[in-house]
């Protein structure tokens, strides 16, 4: 089957998400669609899948124009989509998730579960997916859940499979497994569209690469000859520094010391399992790990948003285990939260108001019970300048800013004061390449000024680029404590998958 998108244009109020986009995929090949967040990749794929209607342009299958009014039409035409956020019902079995919408039935609308299980098991065997049809979805690792999505599209007999940022949630080993599965798919004659912003992966798996920037196709590249620097330049529109430049760390006194810290969820399950760690002044410690291994809860406990059931946290020798978030903040702790929309910003507030959120209760931002908005605005103007926040004015609501600029607002608020410890959780998630560069530099500068920096990231590249020392969290434990200079990508990846290491802290 050959699938072609011709002249696709989609406008949203105020933006052109896709501007005359053309691309073709054939059976048996992998097409990588490379672009930054907001370049229009997802919009394009939602049009292909019948979720959005294109304003202009057409979709052709084997040379014939088709119209998709809903996902049902796209599925019928042989298009399968594996979404970035999995479309799985967590409390369903694997087989139930696969058959939803196309249930094989016997009389009275009864589902023929026996035939469903058999076909799921068969597909799973044919494509080397190793899935148990009866397993409960929410108990499975993310990599396994992704395979359910793959079986879902195979069950519907898809000829072209679209993967939207499929590697974002996977461990390095799971990514290897995933590439192997993609090879099986193409070997079976299926066409694959691989949407990504990761240069290396596009180069690794694709037969052709199409680069999208600001809604337009800016060009096609041959993965055999294109270098990452070339691809990055196509993607961003200017040359980009891909490595963080920094000198050796000069770690000295212990700034943050965590002893025997344990955190549970309301049902008593241990999320952070008696963890010990230290961060010295002038050192960047990176915590690597797959999402959901207790990193978020650890950070929330360190900044005072969660209460531990056991253990202590000391900052520069003082016990801060029971301090409120505000008191910790005043002690010199900065927190860049993992989800900036939820925890970092009030998106309907202006930049000035967001910048005032942490210090609003004292001069110069307030006088007694009154806010000093003039002072706040002057302060905001200074920060917008210093942190290169691209905005029409300080009174623009942060919801209107790009992801990178939103993140810079948070960074500005958190680190523009005397600090002892900076905790940054997923500091560059969903941020454009230019802002990533900038935020990384700022974190290194903090380190050089003698601040203890703790970076939590699920992006192994980010951990490797920034850290002086790397801790790996798995299943609530810290299972490895590695010097950056003495470890490799592959090594950390194995720890992240839990394939080596043990409770060491």
């Amino acid at each position, binding site marked *: 089957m050959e699938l072609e998108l011709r002249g696709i244009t989609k406008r949203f109020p105020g933006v052109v998400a896709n501007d005359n986009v053309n691309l073709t995929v054939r059976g048996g090949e992998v097409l990588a669609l490379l672009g930054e967040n907001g370049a229009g990749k997802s919009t394009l794929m939602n049009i292909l899948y019948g979720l959005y209607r294109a304003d202009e342009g057409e979709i052709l299958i084997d040379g014939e124009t088709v119209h998709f009014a809903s996902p*049902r039409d796209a599925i019928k035409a042989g298009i399968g989509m594996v979404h970035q956020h999995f479309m799985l019902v967590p409390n369903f079995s694997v087989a139930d998730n696969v058959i939803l919408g196309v249930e094989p039935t016997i009389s009275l609308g009864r589902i023929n579960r026996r035939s469903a299980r058999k076909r799921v098991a068969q597909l799973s065997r044919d494509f080397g997916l190793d899935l148990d049809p009866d397993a409960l979805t929410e108990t499975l*690792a993310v990599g396994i859940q992704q395979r359910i999505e793959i079986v879902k599209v195979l069950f519907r007999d898809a000829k072209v499979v679209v993967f939207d940022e499929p590697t974002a949630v996977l461990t390095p080993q799971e990514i290897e497994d995933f590439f192997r599965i993609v090879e099986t798919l193409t070997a079976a004659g299926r066409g694959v569209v691989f949407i990504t912003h990761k240069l290396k992966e596009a180069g690794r798996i694709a037969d052709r690469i199409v680069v999208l920037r600001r809604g337009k196709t800016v060009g096609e590249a041959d993965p055999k000859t294109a270098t990452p620097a070339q691809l990055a330049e196509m993607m961003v529109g200017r040359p980009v520094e891909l490595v963080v430049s920094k000198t050796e760390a000069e770690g000295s006194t212990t700034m943050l010391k965590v002893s025997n810290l344990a955190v549970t969820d309301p049902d*008593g*399950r241990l999320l952070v399992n008696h963890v010990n760690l230290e961060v010295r002044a002038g050192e960047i410690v990176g915590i690597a790990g797959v999402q959901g291994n207790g990193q978020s809860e650890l950070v929330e406990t360190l900044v005072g948003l969660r209460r531990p059931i056991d253990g202590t946290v000391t900052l520069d020798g003082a016990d801060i285990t029971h301090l409120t978030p505000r008191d910790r903040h005043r002690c010199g702790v900065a927190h860049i939260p993992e989800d900036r929309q939820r925890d970092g910003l009030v998106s309907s507030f202006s930049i000035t108001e967001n910048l005032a959120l942490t210090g609003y209760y004292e001069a110069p931002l307030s006088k007694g019970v009154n806010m000093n908005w003039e002072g706040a605005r002057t302060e905001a103007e200074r920060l917008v300048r210093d942190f290169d926040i691209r905005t029409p004015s300080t009174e623009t609501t942060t919801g209107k800013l790009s992801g990178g600029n939103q993140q810079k607002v948070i960074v500005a608020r958190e680190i523009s004061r005397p600090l002892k410890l900076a905790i940054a959780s997923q500091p560059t998630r969903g941020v454009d390449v230019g802002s990533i560069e900038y935020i990384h530099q700022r974190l290194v500068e903090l380190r050089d000024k003698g601040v203890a920096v703790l970076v939590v990231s699920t992006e192994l590249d980010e951990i490797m680029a920034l850290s002086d020392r790397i801790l790996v969290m798995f299943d609530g434990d810290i299972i490895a404590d590695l010097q950056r200079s003495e470890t490799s990508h592959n090594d950390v990846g194995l720890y992240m998958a839990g394939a080596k290491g043990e409770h060491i802290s």
Partner: protein
Amino acid sequence: MSTPTEVYRDAQLAVGRSLEQIKRSRNLGIVYLILAAITAWRLTSHAGTATFNLSGGHSFGVAATPLAWVVAGSLAVMGGVQLARGLGKWQTAALAAVAVVFIFTLLAWAAAPNSFAFVGMLSQGVTYSAPLIFGAMAGIMCERSGVVNIAIEGLLLSGAFTSALVGSVVNFWVGVGAAMVVAALFAWFLAWLAIRFKVDQVIVGFFINFFVLGLTSFLGNRILAVDEAYNQVRTLVPWKIPGLHSIPVIGPILFEQTIFVYIAFALVAFLAWAFAKTRWGLRTRAIGEHPRAADTLGVNVNQLRYRNVIAAGAVAGFGGSWWTANVGRFNENITNGRGFIALAVVIVGRWSPAGALAGALVFGFFDAMEAKLSFLNTGIPGEFVQMLPYLATIIVVAGFVGRSRAPRAAGQAYDSQ
């Protein structure tokens, strides 16, 4: 690749005690001590033997005062243990046992030195549970589809009114059919506002409850009060199931009921089966948990929500006609909050039909007990006795249920863009 999965399961099994669990355990200990004090202080006051009449002339007697002292002592010990070290995995079982024993002691105290119809009271409880079951099933059908329906009370009341009016003018079963249609219309209205216009579902439900209360009161005064013939239906007589009704104790409780009770039980079984085994059930659960997933697989989320909410309305309308069948007429606000108790039953039953059935039976029992205690003239103020079913609701929801999880998408309008 099985290693991470296994480790994940192990982590789930490695259960410690969270702060919330410790607090809950301590609170339970305090509740037990309070119950012990109440038992020792009040329930030891009636001397003599309380006789519990069973079916077929059988009965058993209990010496009320000694029983109360033994129970008070045991409760105090249990409260102490619970406070000191918790009861671990026995905690919930212990709570259930305490509830049963305390209620038994209360009944013995209330009845002593006379006798009362114990099995009759239980049978009454089953009868009273029927409207709660219909209300709860309607609630489950909506919530499992992702629509919060707090208008159950209004739907029951509209059904009660319509079946009384139409039942008086035409005949009972036509009245029931009309009740189903009217309640389904109100449910459609809720669905229309909630799905089409994305109005907050709680607010719409609230509005329907008050609208129906006002409307039925008004029409009751204007139409039903005009002529007795508009508000007079022959009540249904219990139908004894041949064979089964002669089983001792169980027979009179379960198998000498009206057709409403049997249909309620059948509906529970049907829904439990349909949710688990049919395409409709799978899709309904999917749109209540993760509507976008269902949508991307070609399931029409909003259409299915419409259908389920309207069908739930018909179920509630049928439940509303229980009052007509049992009382024979309509009175202002005759449902008196049973629709809200049905919502509590949904939560107690954790959104499963079988669980809700158990919950409905418990609340039906408290309804019957309230009637019995008022009759026994215990000296407890009548107003307090009337509070009993509601008090039981709040205690059960807070104490037994703990944290239970509603369908993830419940209450959220779905928009495919």
